């Protein structure tokens, strides 16, 4: 049977890995290439690189780092951040990315999902949605979680799947950085709405939270986190041992 995936996420700015708490207050952590190799050697099933650089120099630096990583790390690599056109897909796929994650770019131009899926296949297009409750309704946020689009999130996600998104990363802004567990209510709503793989993000503070996630929501395919892995609070081999002991099928 297919295994549940554990995915460390590396936010990269100016060639370094950073991680914000609730998307603010970034702190330098490590070298992306070294960190990626470390994770790959220690049982990560996949890696996500988010380019949070704004400048052109930073963007060039990011693709250099991506190329270097992809030539040394042989597990699936998803790249996101600053993906606004099909040319952006092309740019990162040529540097060794396997999947490309779209967020604000798809909100601005929803056809991007359709065009990219047609050109590279559904399996290549990952929709990343930053979602937060506003007056009890799930809203999609843009620009790294800073701007409420006013769009209802479940409808947005379903629409993107219809256009060809092959995988959904659901990042709960409400639980991100709080380390009190994944947003099971939000994830359940997404799992009920779509039939493509769903990756949970935001809120993991310890290994137990991953056990709770996969037990409560068997339809969730993967758990994504950043700082708890980067700062060594949760080691992936220990996490997988705990998952396996709780009857959850993982790759070891």
């Amino acid at each position: 049977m297919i295994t549940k995936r554990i995915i460390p996420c590396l936010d990269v700015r100016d060639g370094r890995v950073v991680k914000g708490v609730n998307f603010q207050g970034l702190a330098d952590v490590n070298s992306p290439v070294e960190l990626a190799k470390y994770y790959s050697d220690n049982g990560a099933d996949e890696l996500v690189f988010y380019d949070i650089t704004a400048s052109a120099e930073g963007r060039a630096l990011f693709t250099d780092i991506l190329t270097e990583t992809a030539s040394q790390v042989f597990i699936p690599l998803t790249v996101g951040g600053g993906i606004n056109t099909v040319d952006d897909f092309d740019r990162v796929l040529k540097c060794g990315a396997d999947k490309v994650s779209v967020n604000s770019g798809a909100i601005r131009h929803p056809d991007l999902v359709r065009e990219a899926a047609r050109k590279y296949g559904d399996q290549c297009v990952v929709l990343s949605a930053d979602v937060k409750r506003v007056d009890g309704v799930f809203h999609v946020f843009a620009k790294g979680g800073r701007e409420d689009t006013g769009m209802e999130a479940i409808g947005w996600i379903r629409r993107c799947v219809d256009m060809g998104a092959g995988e959904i990363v659901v990042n709960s802004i409400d639980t991100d950085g709080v380390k009190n567990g994944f947003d099971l209510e939000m994830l359940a709503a997404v799992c009920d709405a779509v039939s493509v793989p769903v990756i949970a993000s935001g809120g993991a503070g310890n290994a137990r939270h991953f056990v709770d996630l996969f037990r409560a929501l068997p339809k969730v395919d993967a758990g994504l986190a950043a700082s708890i892995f980067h700062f060594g609070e949760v080691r992936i081999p220990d996490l997988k041992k705990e998952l396996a002991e709780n009857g959850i099928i993982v790759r070891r």
Partner: protein
Amino acid sequence: MITIVDYGVGNLFSLRSSFGSLGERARVSGDPEEILNAEKIILPGVGAFGDAAEKLRSIGMDQALLAAARKGTPLLGICLGMQLLFDRSFEYGEHAGLGLIPGNVRPIADVIPSGLKIPHIGWNALRFHGPACPLFRDVREGECVYFVHSFYAAAHDPFVTATAEYGADLTAAVRRDNVFGCQFHPEKSGGVGLRILKAFCEM
């Protein structure tokens, strides 16, 4: 020296890099003459079967691959490249493949229970079948490899060397003499995948 067939389908970056990390020389070629004279051939592929088969034919690569396989050159098809080794595919119509391995390529949806997601994407465990395949020289049964596919090869038993369980036993690897195929991506399957590629290099 490994020759990776370039016919404008899919991304060859990771494949080239993985041979590089193994210290193996690999070149990419779209020249049928070079394929015919290659020591070992990798046939990659991502995307739709019909387009890929057409591209192979349009540059005369199908004939080069058939001739190379006939004279005993080790050939490894990966993902869609494996599916292209079969007789035909029913992906969006009906398309002829290379016919190097008997069988047809069909939608996974035909054989797995509804409710399971398609594509079959992620890490799944290998189960071995039949005589030991030299590709799996350094792989233990139960080790996981990375799959991404919506169609599967309905192969005849003697040619299936490994399966993966996903609501049904899906063909994961095939072999007929010097012709090998992996439905999964060895170049994305971490250490296990590199061991498989190494075994191919050392055949």
